[in-house]
């Protein structure tokens, strides 16, 4: 027999062993957060499969999801190798963008004159479409990988630079005063005040730059039009389009999307892990 009591609000008997309804609701909401997107995606793929089958669309126009999956398996080895190349290119360019963006951002935050002198270059670099500069870079830089790296880096670099510079300046002025009052060294001010204040800005930039690095890597490879063993997913897409292998093209495209989603999830997770306990953008609001 279960112990029960009377709920003062509803006047109904309540099972004391039953879990808190609010907790249950929260758990259900979390489950929905996972189930709904997956279900929606599943439905879309199912509909795609059905429409292709129903209208007998030829596979060289729109391949069915099942055929794309099959291609992913049969061409798995070569596609995986290309994906690995793209991942390497993306992560390396993102890492260099972080190093470059953060260091230059710090210099900008420390010195207005340097910022005023160098900022135009950063802006020019940012506003000129990477497809337009890529051919030049490919001419000047003989190593193709290095050239691709530079292209992807240019795209990912700017958001990190500008957000780091803004973030380092955004520290609360009263807190700055407090650090001054206690005669903090420049290093202490940077370490304990400016960097924590800049973190939310940096994290926002990282989320953007992660996606941009992938776009940069793919675009650069398209422009380079490289072929052969050591090439990325963009080359597989180009190659498939020349040979009219549409299922393979979709398979490569699918892998590019998966990479993008993984980068997005990873940067979002990192942002929550770093800011979750204090910053408004990542705090779960009380209902």
């Amino acid at each position, binding site marked *: 027999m279960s112990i029960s009591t009377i709920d003062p609000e509803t006047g109904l008997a309540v099972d004391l062993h039953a879990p808190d309804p609010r907790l249950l609701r929260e758990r259900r909401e979390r489950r929905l957060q996972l189930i709904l997107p997956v279900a929606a995606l599943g439905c879309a793929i199912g509909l795609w499969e059905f429409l292709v089958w129903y209208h007998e669309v030829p596979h060289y126009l729109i391949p069915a999801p099942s055929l794309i999956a099959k291609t992913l398996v049969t061409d798995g080895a070569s596609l995986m190798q290309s994906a690995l190349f793209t991942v390497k290119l993306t992560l390396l360019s993102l890492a260099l963008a972080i190093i470059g963006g953060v260091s230059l951002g710090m210099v900008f935050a420390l010195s207005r004159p340097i910022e005023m002198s160098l900022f135009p270059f950063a802006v020019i670099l940012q506003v000129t479409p990477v497809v337009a500069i890529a051919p030049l870079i490919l001419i000047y830089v003989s190593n193709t990988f290095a050239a691709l790296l530079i292209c992807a880096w240019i795209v990912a670099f700017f958001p990190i630079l500008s957000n780091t510079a803004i973030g380092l300046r955004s520290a*609360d002025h*009263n*807190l700055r*005063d*407090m*650090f*001054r*009052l*206690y*005669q*903090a060294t420049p290093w*202490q001010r940077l370490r*304990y*005040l400016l960097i*924590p204040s800049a*973190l939310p800005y940096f994290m926002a930039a990282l989320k953007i730059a992660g996606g941009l690095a992938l776009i940069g890597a793919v675009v650069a490879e398209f422009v380079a039009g490289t072929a052969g063993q050591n090439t990325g997913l963009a080359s597989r897409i180009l190659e498939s389009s020349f040979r009219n292998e549409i299922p393979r093209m979709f398979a490569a495209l699918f892998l590019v999307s998966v990479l993008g989603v993984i980068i997005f999830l990873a940067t979002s997770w990192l942002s929550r892990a770093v800011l979750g*306990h*204090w*910053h408004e953008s990542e*705090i779960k609001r009380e209902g």
Partner: protein
Amino acid sequence: MSTLPHGATAPDLIDMRDVDKVFSNGTIALRGMSLSIKQGEFVSFLGPSGCGKSTALKMIAGLLSVSKGAITVNGHPAGQSRDGSDIGFVFQEATLMPWATVFDNVHLPLKLHGLGKAEARERVDEALAMVGLSNFATSYPRELSGGMRMRVSIARAMVTRPKLLLMDEPFAALDEMTRSKLNDEVLALWKSHGLTVIFVTHSVFESVYLSSRVVVMAARPGRVVHDIPLATDIPRTADYRMSTTYAETCKQVSTALEGTMTHVDLNH
């Protein structure tokens, strides 16, 4: 230099000489403010909103520059005293680091002076106990109420055991009970440690209860209009709050304060 009752001279701890403050947007916050504060005084700043109390306090701490005139603290120009731990400052807003726990926020001044967490623990705990927040050491500022945040800020100012304590409306957001408890805490510290305190408040009662001297300021431009010394020989107890001396002093200070308000109206 000012003259002590027994005829000797003691150097003033704080000396403001004909100080102006003009902000970059042209606002004249202070004009010709002169004030000397001796070691061990408890001075309250009282005055209408916007008359420059916070500005004067920040200038004494060396956080705002002087446009004209001079401020010396302990013989050095304001902000250039060698040991920053000599000054404790409670800002009008709580001004806590949102990414740090209550403990880390209070620990900060000690950390900046090279005292590690383990060495500082006792002093941080002591400061938190004083403001009644011992159980919240691991909380983050966003998890606290406004008044609790203010108390963290007070604990942080106290943790270095400063010789000069500058407080900008520290108790404005607190309930009557907590406020009166903290009033007594500040008074006890002031007595036992030979502190010098400058205390900005809007409460006439609070200023009369706490201070050895009330400085009444007027706005537009900010300046000192009354400088009222109070008797310090009467112990500040609940009885004092009931005494006629207290009531009369409050009336005197209120009248002085009302005078500054009409000043403002006449200027319009």
